[in-house]
């Protein structure tokens, strides 16, 4: 009887462990993969300036990739298998940099980066841009658990933070800035992070 209770308790513990959300030290993760992550940001920012686009991995194995390719009149949304010829043809057709996009896809897969995009934000009526990089580390892939993402934001210039490391609107306006309705925290002067249940 006692043995049966022990088994039930053990089973409960395993289920609870599987359902719990394992946390990841994002600062450590960032520093560990800094060269790849920073390279992704640099390649993306440069390629985006030529022609705007975003990349999303739609599955957990990072085999399916969806791209939003912006042209003057339309944004095209296409989904491909990684490495598919159709993807290369499409990129060429709309004048996107195949080399940069393929480089990004390879590097994004290697660090579990599921989404990259460019976002506009405004300070004192002036437009600024940031690069929005979403990580979907495998540590979060538990059944019955709402998917969680770590989001990194790369700013063009150093930002201001409060004593708790929260991103502020500016030096004079000491109000917490929200991006996509999330509060961000400092990793370094130009890179911030947050934990979100949405990748974009």
């Amino acid at each position, binding site marked *: 009887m006692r043995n049966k209770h022990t088994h039930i308790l053990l089973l409960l513990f395993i289920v609870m462990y599987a359902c719990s959300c394992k946390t990841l030290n994002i600062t450590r993760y960032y520093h560990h993969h800094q060269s790849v992550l920073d390279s992704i940001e640099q390649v993306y920012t440069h390629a985006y300036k030529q022609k705007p686009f975003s990349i*999303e991995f*739609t*599955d*957990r194995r990072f085999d399916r990739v969806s791209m*939003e390719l*912006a042209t003057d*009149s*339309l*944004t*095209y*949304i*296409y989904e491909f298998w990684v490495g598919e010829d159709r993807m290369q043809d499409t990129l060429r057709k709309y004048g996107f940099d195949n080399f940069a996009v393929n480089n990004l896809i390879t590097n994004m897969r290697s660090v579990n980066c*599921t989404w990259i995009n460019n*976002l*506009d*934000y*405004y300070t004192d*009526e002036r*437009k600024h841009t940031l690069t929005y990089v979403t990580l*979907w580390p495998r540590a979060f892939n538990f059944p019955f658990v*709402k*998917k969680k*993402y770590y989001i990194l934001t790369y700013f063009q210039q150093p930002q201001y933070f409060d004593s708790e490391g929260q991103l502020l609107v500016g030096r004079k306006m000491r109000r917490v*800035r*929200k*991006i*996509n*309705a999330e509060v961000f925290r400092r990793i370094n002067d130009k890179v911030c992070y947050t934990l979100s*249940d*949405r*990748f*974009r």
Partner: protein
Amino acid sequence: MKSTFPLLLLTFFLSNLSLASTGEPGRSTQQEALAYLRTIRLPDSSIYWPNTRGHLFLENLRVNVQDPLGMYQGSNTNFCGYAALSYLPLNYDPLRYVKFMLTLYEEGQATWNKIKFTPSPEVMLAAGTLRFKGVLDIRHADQMWFLVLADHFRSYLNFFHRKFHTGSEDTFWAACNLGKFNRMIRQLMGYKIKAVGSDLIRPGIKDLYAYLQNAIQTGTTFLYVNNTYLHVKNHDKSRFSFPTHYIVLTDIQQIGDIFQIIYWDYGGRTLRQVTPEFLKKIIFGVTYCQKDTHEE
């Protein structure tokens, strides 16, 4: 009691007749609206809209008239219904839109198609203060337009959010169900519309492709869709099965087994290839205007 029935019937008939007769909005061109805007000088502040800056307001009106497809609802807001609705005045009657907005700015109230808009003090204070919404941050006319529409047109979805509070633009205060959306088009724009669908149950359209093709050829076509599938934000397998977003469908083509659709939302047009099953799954409502064929 018996005599009231014909009277009710007559009232119903007359009310429908009057709705139909108001369905012809005054039409104007982009050039007329821009020419009118060039004659306007506004003070940079208004006693009615203390946080709305005149120069941003005017610039926003000019941008909307020049590029009607560029109107952006703001990130994470519930303004999609009002943004989709704006497709009609910005494309087909920009002068009326501009005059309405300027009257609203200068007098604190304005009338459109016999509907008098008297915004609440909370909304007047909020216009110009919405932040972290992308380009909407500096589009003070759009902030005012969305807030005024949401403040005036109410439905059961807004029942528990009667007054505007800071952040209400992201809540049910600004939500727009299909009935309210259709009511806004009918009353505000004066269009005669045809609509199918509901807030919870998908419309039983047998040949979706033929239906949508016909709708687009007839007039401006709006789709009420489940955005968790269209604009995916997480990888969860289980998603809510109700509509949350409005888009303007501008084209649909059948290519083999798939549909290629072009739609407007979030300040731009998107081309996407989807399966018929996917499209059926996301559509909860279709509304199309029956009067703008000869306007285009």
